[in-house]
């Protein structure tokens, strides 16, 4: 049995705009999405901001009702059997909200343990274990208002594991964590995977999806534009090489000029302090470098690297450079 089944799901948000001449504006957040996640699988949802990832997760976590289509978690319908789903899922939405800041970390976990119907004797053993797991063992008695963003995020992780759920929805769980914290959290996810938990993970970090997920769906403008294994997705750019050009103060017109070259598939710009990195995808590989240098005429160019494409490059190609 699949742990998660989604069939032609659609979600539209309605907002009233205007004061005197009021009208209703409709925004389609999720459009005709279908996928399945097997039991014990780690499934990734990738996509730019506003692509519909969080809306998708909230519908599966029974916090939003779909406009049309159907979805089930562990065989329970997200609209009709919401109560049954809530007993077997845990969820995290990126960010600091969702905790009681005036209570200590331990009190937050005790509180949510009761709400998740965790037996008090079990909770007594599980809370110290989880605090140790997320690295908050020594700070558990302090009020949450004194926690850093990363600590709050880690407390969310402990909260969501309190009742040992079978299915986990992790919506950008490593956002705001420092690199060490994010790496530790990825290890937590691997451990959960080894316990055969079904996990739906949304993330912006491609290496995270590449390292953790068995299947990945790329969403853009509310639609799935690719669904495959990470290796399969990389196949989308197997014919291309990536040329990384370190440039200083490159104007938008020059980027457009590079993008207009016939041998250039896509261009993404990453800003890093004073300099930028142009990520150029091209089937010509290193042969394209002299022509690119000519196109960048007048721009100071630093290091140039030609490499094999990664999952991120596949993603960039799929969403059309919207990073």
């Amino acid at each position, binding site marked *: 049995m699949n742990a998660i089944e989604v069939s032609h799901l659609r979600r539209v*948000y309605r907002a009233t705009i205007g004061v005197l001449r009021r009208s209703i504006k409709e925004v389609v957040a999720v459009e005709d999405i279908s996928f399945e996640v097997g039991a014990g699988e780690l499934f990734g949802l990738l996509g730019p901001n506003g692509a519909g990832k969080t809306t998708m997760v*909230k519908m599966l*976590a*029974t*916090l*939003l*009702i779909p406009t049309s289509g159907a979805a089930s978690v562990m065989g329970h319908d997200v609209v009709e059997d919401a*109560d049954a789903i*809530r*007993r077997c*899922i845990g*969820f995290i*939405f990126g*960010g600091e*909200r*969702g*905790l*009681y*800041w*005036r*209570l200590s970390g331990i*009190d937050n976990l*005790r*509180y*949510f343990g*009761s*709400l*998740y*119907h965790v037996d*008090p004797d079990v909770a007594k053993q599980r809370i110290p274990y989880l605090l140790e797991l997320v690295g908050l063992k020594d700070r558990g008695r302090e009020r949450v208002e004194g926690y850093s963003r990363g600590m709050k995020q880690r407390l969310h992780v402990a*909260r969501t594991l309190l009742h040992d759920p079978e299915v986990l929805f992790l919506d950008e769980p490593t956002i705001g964590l420092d690199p060490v914290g994010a790496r530790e959290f990825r290890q937590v996810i691997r451990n959960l995977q080894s316990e055969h938990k079904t996990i739906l993970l949304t993330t912006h970090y491609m290496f995270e999806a590449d390292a953790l997920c068995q299947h990945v769906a790329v969403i853009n403008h509310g639609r799935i534009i690719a669904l495959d294994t990470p290796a399969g997705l990389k196949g989308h750019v197997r014919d291309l090489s990536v040329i990384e050009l370190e440039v200083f103060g490159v104007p938008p017109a020059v980027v457009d000029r590079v993008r207009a070259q016939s041998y250039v598939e896509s261009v993404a710009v990453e800003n890093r302090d004073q300099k930028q990195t142009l990520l150029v995808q091209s089937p010509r590989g290193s042969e394209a470098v002299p022509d690119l240098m000519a196109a960048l005429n007048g721009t100071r160019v630093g290091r140039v690297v030609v490499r094999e494409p990664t999952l991120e490059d596949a993603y960039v190609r799929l969403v059309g450079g919207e990073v």
Partner: protein
Amino acid sequence: MSLRLIRESWRAMWAVAEMTLRQQVMDAFILFTVLVQPLIIAILALWMLRDKGSEFAIFIVVGSGMTGLWSSLLFISGNTINLERWFGTLETLVGVPTPLAVIVFGKNLANVFQSLTSMIVSYLLAALLFGYTLRIEQPVLFGVSLLLTVVSFISFGLIIAPIFVMNPSVQQWQNAMEFPVYILCGFLFPIALLPGWTTPLSVLLPPYWAARALHGTSSGGAKVEEILLSWAMMIVFSAIYFFIASQLFKKMVVKARADATLDME
């Protein structure tokens, strides 16, 4: 409803009440609503009626406590769901297996217990500052009346919270609902002093029956059948309100999930 579910909900309700008290104990607005404001009312009333004797003093002690109960119900219990939304915790609460109505019940329980402290403080104030000898004439009946008062106030709180969420226009009248209830329900003086046409309004308000039972049993003089009538009315109102609240909560959660209003972001 299975026994297991009842046991789990019971445990969750007390956990919510305990954590709510822990959170609110340092909240200045809540301390003002449940302690300072009833104390101000008690001081004013005790000062004005200082020549009337102990019988009036106990009336004021009980009445000022009820003002604290009502204000806490209106402003704290009424805003419970909206506050959770502002804190960003409402989504998390809707996503747990414990029904939201049970969680709000626990929160209202904490608010009502907290407000009862205003009655104790008013009692001490009257005894120590004004030197009254205060005595509850029918302590057992007073205890039962207090218990039913707690239940009826919680049930009323369970109704107004979802109404305020679903109808923000009703919440705009929140401030205007505070003092008329003090007066119409006879918290600080008997409703016999009011014009006759207000009496039907009073009997439709559950706090009126709570005030009648508490005043009658603390000051003495109330007949047993009058007290029983007040208890019966509180039980009937509570049963009706619990039923309406259960329907309102279901409707509100479905509406919030459909309209995407569980979160402010």
